[in-house]
């Protein structure tokens, strides 16, 4: 039994030691990575967040639809594929407390009126779990942490290590010119595919009686409270979609947000009057052309509302 205990002890000590070495090495490499949608974009956001005046949050729809530089020169679009409200709400908590900033938040009712949202998108921030107390607390609050992370810090880099090394060796783009906006330049083939996809019937189940997911509502409140208390102007909106469905959910969302003092703008049907296939890559994502037109409209609207100059 003694030899078994000795073996277990050596394994634990060795694992602990190797883990810390691997963790430090990955931290060092990771901190230098500024390209790529997950780590690079997050690192760049962490670098610029204190100096910029406008930040766009949301999913890939925010990422591809809002050309933030046209709204404010010092700006960043942190919208990302796969991220949802928990991810964004946590990043918002990291913004400087006293600096005046505009937060443009793209929210989609089909991600709000859902039964099964569990905030797992917050795992996108897991690489900072053992390095940033705010992120650690947010991930723990969402019950998306792994209790082993307290012992094995390298778990923060689970499934990310390879991507980090890849982006470190060969960055995807020059981050000095990048501000988070990724316009979708479409090809004729993509337009053809989009045309074909339009023949398919939507299977979105529109339930007028559906309530806002309580977890989503918690984060919406958190964002609103933070903005009110920290000199942030919150612009909550839905960017255009090709054919908006279940309009009743947009109306419900607007009414509910009004109760907590948030003015929500629904631009989902922005192109309905003068729709053109060239504005779209698919039903939910605008092409660069569509994004240009929409951003220009948004700029004028924000100027009119005296949110930007």
């Amino acid at each position: 039994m003694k030899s078994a205990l000795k073996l277990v002890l050596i394994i634990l000590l060795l694992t602990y030691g190797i883990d810390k070495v691997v963790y430090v090495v990955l931290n060092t490499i990771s901190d230098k990575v500024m390209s790529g949608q997950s780590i690079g974009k997050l690192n760049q956001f962490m670098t610029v967040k204190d100096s910029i005046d406008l930040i766009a949050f949301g999913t890939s729809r925010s990422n591809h639809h809002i050309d933030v530089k046209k709204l404010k020169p010092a700006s960043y679009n942190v919208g990302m594929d796969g991220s949802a409200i928990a991810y964004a709400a946590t990043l918002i908590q990291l913004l400087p407390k006293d600096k005046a900033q505009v937060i443009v938040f793209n929210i989609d009712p089909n991600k709000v009126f859902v039964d099964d949202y569990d905030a797992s998108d917050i795992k996108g921030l897991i690489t900072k779990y053992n390095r940033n107390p705010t992120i650690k607390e947010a991930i723990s609050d969402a019950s998306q942490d792994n209790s082993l992370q307290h012992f094995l810090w390298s778990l923060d880099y689970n499934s990310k290590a390879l991507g980090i090394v890849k982006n470190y060796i060969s960055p995807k783009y020059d981050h000095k010119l990048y501000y988070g906006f990724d316009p979708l330049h479409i090809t004729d083939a993509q337009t053809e595919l989009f045309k074909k996809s339009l023949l398919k019937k939507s299977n979105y189940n529109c339930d007028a009686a559906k309530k806002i997911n309580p977890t989503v509502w918690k984060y919406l409140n958190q964002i609103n409270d933070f903005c009110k208390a920290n000199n942030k102007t919150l612009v909550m909106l839905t960017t255009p979609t090709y054919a908006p469905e279940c309009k009743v959910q947009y109306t419900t969302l607007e009414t509910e947000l009004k109760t907590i003092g948030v003015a929500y703008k629904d631009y989902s049907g922005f192109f309905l009057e003068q729709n053109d296939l060239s504005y779209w890559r698919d039903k939910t994502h605008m092409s660069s052309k569509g994004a240009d037109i929409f951003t220009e409209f948004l700029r004028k609207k924000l100027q009119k509302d005296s949110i930007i100059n």
Partner: protein
Amino acid sequence: MLFNSIEFLIFFPVVFAIYWMLKKSVSKQNILLLISSYVFYGWWDWRFLSLIVYSSFIDYLTGLKIENSPTKTLKKRWLLVSLISNLGLLAVFKYYNFFADSFAQSMASLGWQVDDLTLNIILPVGISFYTFQTLSYTIDIYRDKLKPTKDIVVFFTYVSLFPQLVAGPIERASNLIPQIKNKRIFKASQFNDGIFQIIVGLFRKIVIADNLAIYVDTVYENPDLHNGSSLLIATLFYAFQIYYDFSGYSDIAIGSAKLLGFNFNQNFNFPYFSKSITEFWRRWHISLSSWLKDYLYISLGGNRKGIKITYRNLLITMLLGGLWHGSSWNFVIWGAIHGIALAIEKFTFSKLNIKNFNALGSLWTFTVVLLSWVFFRAQDLSSSMLIIKRILSFDFGAPFIGNMNTVIIAILMLFLGLSFDVFIFRKKVALEYYGSSLKTGSLAVFVSIVIMIITLFYSTSNNFIYFQF
């Protein structure tokens, strides 16, 4: 409770510590094992514990009755009680809906509409495994190969011993019951073997199998959206996913049992290095294939009644072996492919007077196995046919990649796993006994490095595939 869960990480050391504290009393150790096994199973759904208790009780009783019956006829009657009770459970929980649905469809094809006869039944985890395990006990007693145990705790522990309860290996009573009855002695070599095998099992399951699963699941979920290349890659990935998933599970089970002082039989022995399907079945899920051979194939007459009957027996055995995996025609076809291939090999071996194929046999074996996996994995028969049609059309365009990082991790880890397999295979030492051949320092370094690989690359995509059987 899953082997790769935090719960098990707490559960097992606690059981281990108390278990060895009680080393002076086998009966107390057995009571602890029984209680902890029921906790392990009940963690999933405590209601189905009643089925294990029922099955254990029936076989405990019928085992004694068979032994004490004065005539062969009476012995047979008690054996029938055991067979009907166990297979009855399996029939209700696993096959009722399948046969009811197949019956309704057959009637519909004849123009008769039958009301929906299916029931809302949940399949209890591990039912196929413990049913076969308990059946082997009563059949062995009937065949005078085993004496029944009178110790009810020993028998109940044999049926439910947690490392092998939900997905095997299907341990024979002749191997396990004497180990449960007798005093277990803690051996450092056995402990080292166990630790080594558990860590290898975890790597196989949550690093290799679960990373491969991401691509496989995406492609097999909508096969109509993918071309021949993607479907072929997904099928290749699945071949390794299921191997590393199930052999990984077996490794953890066998390794955990070793830490408690038990020796389970080997369940996988590098099956993809086989040169024939016959050899494949001597290396793949060994506890099931030997069970099917001993209790089904031989009971049907084996190869003792002429060549035609031998072919028939092979086919029946593999068809039922397929059906054991699940209540769907896809599993039956999977079994049929293996049965036909085994019959072809039997014929070829006897004509050429050889015992196995040469190196080319590996290609034949892997191709047959790969083809059969399509039926095993696809959601239904029409999807299977579509996948095979697309692959065989040789229309190999650019494959679907999905998340590039995930695919690269899956391929890298698969390469690592295969290299490890080749290394152990060439050493000609069973994985089960490799840990004790290493010095403490080397073993500790190996385990720590594997833990680090698991930490960085594990995926949480799936349950163990064989849980559904």
